[in-house]
């Protein structure tokens, strides 16, 4: 009797579930009905924290704020083709001969989303507030002596010292926290807590519409954008945390673009590259490398012979096969192909040679113990997939010459703070070589922000300092060539790969910042201004 009741209950529950489905309707159809408004949905892995991008580094905010706001100048992902830095709000700029005074001419048709014109006063207000409050962009404005606004369409930035890299570095930092804010809405207010942040008013290609926290952020094309209206009508950033879910949804055609952070395994990418009629695997050269930072303050890494031995123990081609299924590009230089104008091909890190590696370690007095190991060392990595798979192989390759490696993995914050504290032996890192080679100073100059290895060489310091103070490119090439010679000779780091960014785009879609036809038009790495849907 009771079993009948239960059975009936179960059946009606099941029935209810089945019946309920059609009532709710089918899931949202893919966008881009012919002729109708075009909505581009882009997955993003972290929610924004604030809609004001300038007072902190907010990785979740990069996507929306880079499209709502405009920048003085912008830089592309690949920087291999065309100019390395181009104007967004700036129509043109000139530097004096000494590379100390920069004059920017602004576009006269630029307006904020509330209709007010964007003028030199907004640029001055934004940059001066950054300098005053020491917000993150200040690192790139540290040497600014004065910002002048002779007229509404002219900004003059005067530096204390010559700096040929100034505009390019301003461009790259603008990706993250160098957006021009409306003075008339922010003046006298605290950026982090200003009420304007809730409904941001920018001067970028898209207007803010809605932020459903934890869900999605909706923007709409700004018809009055000074570089022309975007070809898509709505831009929606949808939060999807899980990599596999994002990939599955991309495959099912629920959005046309899979940013590289969501990339599936390299095996899967390699497979897709060769045979998928509907999906383009887009390769974007990067301005970063993947390399090993060797802590010079630690035994036995302070011994050059040991560093050379490590370099000889590493087989990049094998690493490429094992870690990346052969689709990355190994590099033996202290630079990247993406910046050929400054690359010194004579300065080359050694090839794999196990015999040589073992000999060097013997010379260094590091004999093999009973277990076949000479010494023990720890390795940590930048917590992203590519660096993790590189590390897996490095551990094995170093073991071949008797270096016992303990591999430690951390979350980004932990890893970064250990690096900054010099609390590591070897770590993977990402040296940035562009948009200006001044980065060599940043990475290996004595006491510089990213010199985690404790490298210090007076000759090197002088060379990179001289190179920064000249705009003569022949001279700069010669100086940076010498800097690369020194780095390869002294090996505070060992370059392994040029970073290879892969993303996926459904056929027919064009103009994403990772694609060549998005270059010089995307307005930052996170910009969607140049995206063109199929058939437009």
């Amino acid at each position: 009797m009771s079993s009948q009741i239960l059975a009936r209950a179960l059946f009606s529950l099941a029935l209810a579930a089945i019946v309920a489905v059609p009532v709710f309707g089918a899931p949202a159809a893919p966008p881009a009905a012919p002729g109708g408004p075009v909505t581009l949905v882009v997955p993003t892995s972290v929610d924004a924290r604030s809609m004001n991008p300038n007072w902190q580094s907010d990785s979740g905010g990069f996507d929306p704020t880079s499209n709502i706001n405009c920048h003085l100048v912008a830089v592309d992902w690949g920087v291999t083709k065309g100019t390395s830095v181009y104007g967004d709000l700036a129509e043109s700029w000139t530097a004096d001969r000494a590379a100390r005074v920069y004059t920017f001419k602004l576009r006269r048709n630029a307006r904020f989303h509330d209709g007010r014109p964007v003028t030199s006063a907004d640029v001055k207000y934004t940059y001066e507030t950054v300098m005053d409050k020491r917000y993150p962009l200040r690192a790139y404005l540290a040497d600014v002596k004065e910002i002048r606004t002779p007229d509404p369409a002219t900004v003059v930035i005067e530096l204390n010292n010559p700096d040929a890299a100034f505009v390019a570095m301003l461009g790259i930092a603008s990706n993250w926290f160098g957006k021009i804010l409306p003075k008339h809405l922010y003046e006298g207010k605290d950026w982090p807590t200003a009420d304007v942040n809730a409904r941001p008013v920018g001067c970028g290609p898209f207007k803010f519409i809605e932020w459903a926290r934890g869900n999605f952020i909706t923007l709409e094309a700004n018809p009055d954008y000074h570089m022309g209206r975007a070809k898509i009508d709505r831009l929606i950033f949808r939060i999807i945390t899980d990599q596999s879910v994002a990939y599955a949804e991309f495959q099912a055609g629920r959005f046309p673009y899979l940013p590289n952070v969501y990339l599936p395994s390299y095996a899967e990418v390699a497979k897709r590259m060769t045979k998928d009629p509907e999906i383009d695997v887009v390769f974007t050269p990067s301005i970063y490398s993947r390399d090993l930072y060797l802590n010079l303050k630690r035994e036995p890494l302070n011994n050059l012979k040991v560093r050379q031995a490590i370099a000889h123990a590493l087989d990049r081609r094998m690493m490429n096969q094992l870690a990346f299924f052969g689709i990355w590009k190994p590099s033996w230089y202290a630079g990247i192909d993406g910046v050929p104008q400054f690359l010194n091909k004579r300065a080359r890190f050694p090839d794999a040679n196990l015999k040589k590696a073992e000999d060097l370690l013997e010379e260094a007095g590091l004999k093999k113990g009973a277990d076949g190991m000479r010494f023990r060392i720890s390795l940590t990595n930048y917590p992203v997939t590519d660096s993790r798979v590189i590390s897996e192989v490095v551990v094995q390759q170093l073991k071949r010459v008797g270096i016992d490696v303990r591999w430690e993995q951390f979350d980004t914050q932990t890893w970064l703070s250990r690096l900054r504290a010099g609390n590591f032996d070897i770590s993977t890192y990402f040296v940035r070589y562009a948009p200006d080679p001044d980065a060599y100073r940043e990475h290996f100059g004595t006491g510089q922000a990213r010199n985690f290895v404790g490298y210090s060489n007076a000759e090197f310091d002088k060379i990179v300092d001289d190179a920064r103070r000249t705009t003569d490119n022949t001279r700069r090439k010669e100086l940076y060539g010498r800097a690369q010679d020194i780095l390869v000779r002294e090996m505070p780091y060992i370059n392994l790969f040029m970073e290879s960014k892969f993303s996926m785009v459904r056929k027919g879609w064009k103009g994403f910042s990772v694609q060549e036809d998005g270059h010089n038009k995307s307005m930052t790495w996170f910009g969607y201004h140049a995206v063109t849907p199929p058939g437009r």
Partner: protein
Amino acid sequence: MRLRRFLVLRMIQLVPVLLVVVVLNFVLIHLAPGDVALAMAGENPDPVYMAAIRERFGLDKPLHVQLLTYIARIAQGDLGDSFRSRRPVTETLLERVPATLLLVATALAFSSLLGTIVGTWIARRAGGGLDVWVSGLAVASYSVPVFWLGLMLILFLAIRVPVFPPSGMMSVTGVAPGLARWLDILHHLVLPALALSTVWFGQYVRIARSSVLQVLSEDFVTTARAIGYPERQVLFGHVLPNAMLPVVTVLGLQLGLVLAGAVLTETVFAWPGLGQLVYESILARDTPLIVGSYVVMGVCVVAASLLVDLVYAALDPRVEL
């Protein structure tokens, strides 16, 4: 009168529990390397900027001073502001709690109800073929990792056969407010709730089955049957009330975890609940949000155990408050 005294006592107990929650989490977060200033400073961290951030949030003070300041503020009912969004923590949490509640309450109701029904049902056929099968399935559903199950559900019911939306809580392409929006949310709720309740379902089947089985063998059941009560009355009037105590215990435990128990599910399904928020806050070292969330979760655990005690007293006349 006695009930009121009991309630007051429990309220007083809440204080030390919350104190432990706060102290423990506060210390744990500060033990983790890296701090919010470094996270906020970006690629080329400026020491002055970081120092200003630390000063602004009092992070430059000794840990015990920070802790005492925080406790003093919580005592006034203020959970502080998030470091990263500068919005009040309470406001941020209130935004996220409904999503989590909806997901977990649905899954909990579904799994406990259905699990108990099925468990009772097979207990009466213990040892039979059906019992073996259903018990096996229950163990299987109990041991499936929820993220894997979630992914499979997405692949089959959202991608292969696109019946449900794969992730998120609402359609991004504008749904009119009102009934349509509610239906849209329910539509999005199906897969995550299914994943979560499948995993929980198994344990309710197991507990209900063994509990009912045990009660069925008690003398008073034999007596009731001997008196000639109809089987339905024996089951519903005598067996179930006695067999429900373990089920209520488990339900109570899970009710306590109602806000914390769905982190993985929320991550897979991009469900904008508290779990997702806590996960992001931990990676960003947003201490006020992390500790604030744990305080709310702690309150939940205490409230749930209080509720269980009350239900116990109602179900079992031997239990006195």
